[in-house]
């Protein structure tokens, strides 16, 4: 349900403003309202003014912002390490920290820049590592003092290799050797060995033919090929060592200074948050005013906290919420533990307005019911029950998954109950195996028309509940005409249903005449309350009720899919293959059985049910609290 909120004004002497604001932030139960028009009368508005920051406060804020920015910059250079809690009071060491942070920022910035340059170099050198690995075994087979030259090339495919051989034969008259090997990334690497005099000519031709030669950094350009590789490898090792040394220095620095800087940064963030919120406060010559909202259940805690700290110097005054304030009141949902996981569904849509109703309790009751009605299979229910327990256990710390697991658990219980009512356990096969036929209340596969009537009856009840809640909401908002419209709609819908039943001889035909008279009496009232569009709305409501036929339709599809799974398994004539096929089909059916009923049950709530009473557009309650 929507928590009852209280309009609150906190008043105290100007000199205790900062401390009051800090305490309010610490309590985390008060939302500051920047717009004070609903808190003060026009006369009072002239006497109070927005808080004017004095020169000292402005200078302090600029100093805090600058210092925080510099500490943030320092932390951007440091590695993430676990640091102990600092015992120093940040407020007392600010000046020392401001002096040292500049020097530390320069030192760490220098390390970071050096590290960045080394990393860039290492990335470039590592690019050659692929070729190094491939070429080393080839070079091991060659004599370095033979007066030969070496050209390394990358070859795209075997066809390119043949073309390369042809070109080399033409250029060197067959005085060459090509050794190839596959690199780690799958590229074909070739090492061409040839006389030194021919090397330049071959290089030029390969360049013209777009055969990429392995290129090395300019510093290695003049070295012979085997020497290049050795030097490159040595440089990679050297750069890696230098990076490790810088990392060590940075980690040691973070361990030594991180705790102090982190403590100061946190303190600065808190002070700056207070400074930011000061723009929303008001004052007179002697006292300050903080206007805002707090849940009714928390007012006592707020009052006690302020009394305890300021001994009555700062007071909390409750103000009456007027009709025109209703759209301004922030909304927070407070539901009992059973309903709370279902707030997940309520949060998917905009929050309801304060004067509206929280749909969570209704969705918590009806959603699992609809889910169970649609899936209705004891076997599938058991599987989902186990799955929900596993999910809840595996994701204990993730609130959203835990809530989803709780919803699945409740829905699975309803699925089992309806499975027993329908006599289904992995379709009709499992039910027969377990002797559940006796439990049949209705066999969905055959009783299509009774199930259709059942689904429509559920729809009628659900939509009528929605209209009733709409009536309550309208009364709460004091919109009499809307309340009358909702009430008359309920009677008209009731009359239409009974009329239909009496005309189809399910109820006595005698009822037809009085019901027609009642409708003739109610319809003008409907026009009066709902305007000219009232009949259209009525038709929409009838459409909403028919929409509940999906409970039967999706359920029937689920039964038939389970039946197909069992039939297919039976047709194989082999127990092992049959069981495997049945497992696959039933798994698919269970996956569909989770998604389909969820989407459809949600849709029935969001479209058919919510539209009758929920007024979206509520303001979320966002109290001032520590990050």
């Amino acid at each position, binding site marked *: 349900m929507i928590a009852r909120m209280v309009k609150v004004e906190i008043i105290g002497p100007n000199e205790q403003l900062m401390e009051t604001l800090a305490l309010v932030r610490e309590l985390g139960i008060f939302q500051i309202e920047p717009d004070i028009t609903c808190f003060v009368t026009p006369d009072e508005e002239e006497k109070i003014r927005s808080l004017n920051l004095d020169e000292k406060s402005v200078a302090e804020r600029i100093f805090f912002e600058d210092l925080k920015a510099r500490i943030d910059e320092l932390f951007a250079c440091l590695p993430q390490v676990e640091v102990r809690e600092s015992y120093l009071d940040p407020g007392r060491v600010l000046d020392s920290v401001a002096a040292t942070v500049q020097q530390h920022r320069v030192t760490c910035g220098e390390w970071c820049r050096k590290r960045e340059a080394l990393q860039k170099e290492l990335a470039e050198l590592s690019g050659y590592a692929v070729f190094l690995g491939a070429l080393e075994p080839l070079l091991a087979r060659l004599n370095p003092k033979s007066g030969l030259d070496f050209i390394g090339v990358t070859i795209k495919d075997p066809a390119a290799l043949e073309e390369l051989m042809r070109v080399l034969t033409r250029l060197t008259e067959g005085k060459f050797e090509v050794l190839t090997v596959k690199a780690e990334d799958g590229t074909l690497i070739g090492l061409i060995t040839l006389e030194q005099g021919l090397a330049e000519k071959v290089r030029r031709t390969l360049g013209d033919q777009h055969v990429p030669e392995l290129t090395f950094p300019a510093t290695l350009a003049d070295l012979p090929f085997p020497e290049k590789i050795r030097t490159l490898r040595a440089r990679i090792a050297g750069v890696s060592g230098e990076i490790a040394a810088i990392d060590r220095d940075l980690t040691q620095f973070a361990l030594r200074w991180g705790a102090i800087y982190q403590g100061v940064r946190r303190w600065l963030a808190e002070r700056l948050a207070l400074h930011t919120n000061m723009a929303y406060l008001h004052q007179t010559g002697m006292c300050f005013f903080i206007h805002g909202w707090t849940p009714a259940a928390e007012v006592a805690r707020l009052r006690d906290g302020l009394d305890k700290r300021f001994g009555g110097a700062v007071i909390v005054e409750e103000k009456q919420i007027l009709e025109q304030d209703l759209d301004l009141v922030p909304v927070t949902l407070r539901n009992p533990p059973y309903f709370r996981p279902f707030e997940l569904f309520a*949060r*998917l*849509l905009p929050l309801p307005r304060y004067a509206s109703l929280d749909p969570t309790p209704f969705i918590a009751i009806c959603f699992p019911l609809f889910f169970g009605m649609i899936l209705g299979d004891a076997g599938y229910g058991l599987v989902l029950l186990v799955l929900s327990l596993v999910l809840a256990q595996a994701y204990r710390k993730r609130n959203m998954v835990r809530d989803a697991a709780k919803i699945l658990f409740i829905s699975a219980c309803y699925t089992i109950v309806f499975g027993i009512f329908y006599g289904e356990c992995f379709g009709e096969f499992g039910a027969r195996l377990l002797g559940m036929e006796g439990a049949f209340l209705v066999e969905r596969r055959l009783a*299509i*028309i009774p199930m*259709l009537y059942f689904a429509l009856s559920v729809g009628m009840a659900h939509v009528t509940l929605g209209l009733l809640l709409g009536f309550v909401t309208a009364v709460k908002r004091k919109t009499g005409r809307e309340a009358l419209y909702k009430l008359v709609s309920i009677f008209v819908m009731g009359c239409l249903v009974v009329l239909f039943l009496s005309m189809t001889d399910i109820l006595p035909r005698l009822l037809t005449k009085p019901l027609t008279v009642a409708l003739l009496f109610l319809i003008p009232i409907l026009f009066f309350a709902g305007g000219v569009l009232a009949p259209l709305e009525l038709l929409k409501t009838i*459409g909403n009720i*028919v*929409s509940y*036929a*999906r409970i039967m*339709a999706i359920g029937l599809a689920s039964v038939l899919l389970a039946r197909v799974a069992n039939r297919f398994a039976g047709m194989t004539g082999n127990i092992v293959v049959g069981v495997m096929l049945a497992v696959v089909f039933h798994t698919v059916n269970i996956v569909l059985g989770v998604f389909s009923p969820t*989407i*459809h049950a*949600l*849709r029935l709530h*969001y*479209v058919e049910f919510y539209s009758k009473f929920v007024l979206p557009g509520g303001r979320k309650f966002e109290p001032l609290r520590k990050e």
Partner: protein
Amino acid sequence: MEKVYIALAAALAVGLSAVATAWAQSKIGAAGAGTLAEKPELSGTIIILVAIPETMVILGFVVAVSILNM
């Protein structure tokens, strides 16, 4: 022959409404996916929008069942 016509009518009732639903959902779904990429907080609204055309096929199914039980 009458049975064939009844079956054909029922098949058309559910088949045509299914095609219409699929067409509408394809358009809404594509637009919805685009919207979600930019505003994930609208997931609830998108679910509703995608699920709205399904009423057509459900009504088609109800009509088909009524035809077969006439």
